[in-house]
């Protein structure tokens, strides 16, 4: 009787072992399902397209296989609307059963699905949403991003403007929404900490018809103008700025003169100094290959969105390699993702901090014409290993309010 019990137990154990091994084996042979939230219609579509291109290039280079497993990509169009983003996220998770999501594009989209991601426990890597609090005061255990915060490259720019360029009094003009507010705030803080003064802050509505009103208000006696625009507004502003004949030098946020919009600009962009975590002009073998490949496929230099998506995919690859391709083990995969350190990113070395935000190089760039007459962001200075907190103590940083239009308060306005 005991013998039968033992043999039954043994066969049971062997059977389950066999089953487990075979499931693991079949799981290993099944493709991993990656969801991709992007924008294909509406005003943000250009960025969405560039994200798609970055991701497509990555998959093409890897022959659609990461860490030994094939990739099945599910792309969803959020139309830039938060409610649709949530539905699409649900579609990816519940209908397509994706195991990881790359996306979304906009900060408000990421915030709209924040609750859902926590509830559904889906690892998500954002290639573009830069809102500060996503990795500061409201971190989501399942959320990491491949790009930095809005203010991350603006802190070094503030220091550079004060110490290297020697500007004392600066006027800021930015888009009147969160991305603009946070970017200008970061610049102001670092600039004023280094002895500079922001003497005038102008905010233009996102959909303003004409920048003439704002340009005409710029204090002509300032040393420089800092612009913080996204999308179409950077080119629109700069063109008008030059038309008015304002002579003040321009320093800019990353997206104001991003490669994505730079390609359609003209002389109005020359000489603009900006800072960002990427420029197509980075002089490394990895980046040169990347830029070459993007030009081959899409006839344009990669910018913010392209490198964001590509970087997100690289993070995915790193994490997947660490767990030997077993994405099914969610907790292990998420742990691997949060400790990811990517060494072959076109931007340089990128590793994630404790909050899921990258620590990476920030490049001070200058718009110049290359030998073939193309406008490029040439690297002028590199700040290595910049985090979202710059040189500030993270605990103190987080204890203060999030960057906004009124924080840090502008004490030097004239």
């Amino acid at each position, binding site marked *: 009787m005991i013998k039968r019990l033992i043999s039954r137990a043994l066969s049971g154990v062997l059977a389950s072992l066999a089953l487990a091994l075979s499931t693991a084996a079949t799981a290993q042979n099944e493709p991993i399902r990656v969801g991709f939230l992007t924008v294909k219609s509406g005003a943000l579509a250009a960025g969405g397209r560039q994200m798609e291109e970055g991701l497509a290039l990555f998959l093409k280079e890897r022959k659609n296989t990461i860490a030994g497993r094939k990739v099945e990509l599910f792309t969803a169009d959020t139309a830039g609307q938060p409610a649709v983003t949530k539905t699409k996220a649900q579609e990816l998770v519940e209908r397509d059963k994706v195991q990881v999501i790359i996306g979304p594009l906009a900060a408000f989209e990421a915030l709209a699905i924040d*609750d859902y991601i926590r509830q559904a426990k889906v690892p998500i890597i954002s290639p573009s949403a830069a809102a500060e609090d996503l990795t500061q005061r409201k971190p989501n255990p399942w959320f990491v991003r491949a790009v930095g915060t809005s203010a991350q490259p603006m802190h070094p720019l503030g220091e550079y403007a004060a110490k290297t360029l020697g500007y004392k009094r600066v006027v800021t003009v930015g888009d009147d929404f969160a991305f603009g507010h946070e970017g200008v705030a970061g610049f102001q803080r670092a600039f004023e900490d280094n002895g500079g003064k922001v003497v005038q802050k102008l905010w233009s509505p996102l959909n303003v018809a004409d920048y003439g009103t704002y340009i005409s208000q710029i204090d002509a006696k300032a040393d420089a103008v800092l612009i913080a625009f996204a999308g179409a507004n950077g080119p629109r502003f700069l063109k008008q700025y030059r038309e008015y004949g304002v002579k003040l030098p321009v320093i800019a946020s990353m997206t104001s003169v991003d490669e994505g919009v730079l390609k359609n600009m003209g002389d109005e962009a020359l000489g603009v100094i900006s800072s960002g975590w990427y420029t197509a002009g980075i002089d490394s073998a990895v980046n040169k290959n990347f830029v070459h490949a993007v030009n081959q496929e899409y006839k344009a230099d990669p910018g913010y969105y392209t490198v964001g998506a590509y970087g997100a995919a690289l993070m995915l690859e790193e994490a997947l390699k660490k767990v030997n391709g077993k994405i099914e083990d969610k907790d292990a995969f998420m742990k691997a993702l949060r400790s990811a350190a990517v060494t072959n990113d076109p931007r340089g070395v990128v590793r994630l901090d404790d909050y899921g935000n990258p620590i990476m190089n920030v490049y001070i760039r200058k718009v110049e014409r290359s030998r073939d007459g193309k406008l490029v962001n040439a690297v002028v200075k590199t700040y290595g290993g910049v985090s979202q907190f710059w040189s500030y103590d993270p605990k103190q940083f987080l204890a203060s309010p999030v960057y906004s239009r009124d924080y840090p308060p502008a004490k030097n306005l004239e």
Partner: protein
Amino acid sequence: MRYASSIAALVALAALPFALGNEYYVNLASQVLIAAIFAMSLNLLVGYGGMTSLGHAAYLGVGAYATAWLTLRLGLGPLGAGAAALAITTLMAGFYGVLALRASGLGFLMITLALGQILWGLAYRWVGVTGGDNGLSGLARPAPLGIDITGARPFYFFALAVFAVAFALVALFVRSPFGASLQGARDQPRRMRALGYNVWMIRWITFVLAGFWGAVAGVLYVYYNNFISPHALSLTQSAEVLLMVIAGGAATLTGPVVGAALVVVMKNVVSAYVERWTLLLGVVFVLIVMFLPDGLVPGVQRLYSRWRTRP
């Protein structure tokens, strides 16, 4: 006997989640219900009242924002916040109605558009209260009668219950003497005035009711999404809900529901298969306006009765 079809429809809707299976489709059905309530509210104005508004998203938006703000900042429970939000939004509708009814026709359209845009701008700019373009998040769903509606299926039944009540009340309203006088004011305002009806009061009351039901949709919206941002107040949203009403069939009870289903499905499902779905939506809309000008529901009804009475 006329209730038989309504009851049958209700039973079918209640059985839907079991037929649909996948949670994703159940969630989609919830969204259709919320959009249907929203469209029904606008239909009171557009279809039965004859007043075309391009600013109706304001009521959904304010209902949603008020609920969110009261929950987050004042710590009210979601249900209490929802009730308070309904009151606030209805008051606002009363005020807006007084302004908007100064005009009619295109002037009315313009005022409602402008009022809607003012609220949208406010939502963007008043960052301290509304969170600006980042919106308000971190909201929880209520627990009506202690039932947890975080899951897809429970929420669907909650939304269905609200929808059923809304539909019944709107149907009652439309079929009541007041509803008749509203349609009379739409078709023959001068005659109605001559008969002694206070046309302005009839329209104003309708305006307020439309705002109220719009707010109901807004409260459900924020319960469902756990998030609200200025996009819900945009001109695009107002245009979309107008599309729902017109495409489905203004001045019918089921038209807005059909229109809501059409737009929600196109936006969320068709967009997965057709890249240029916005273009498709525009084409569908133009075709409906041209060939089924009263909307899908009356158009299909007409085709059906023609088929039945074929020689």
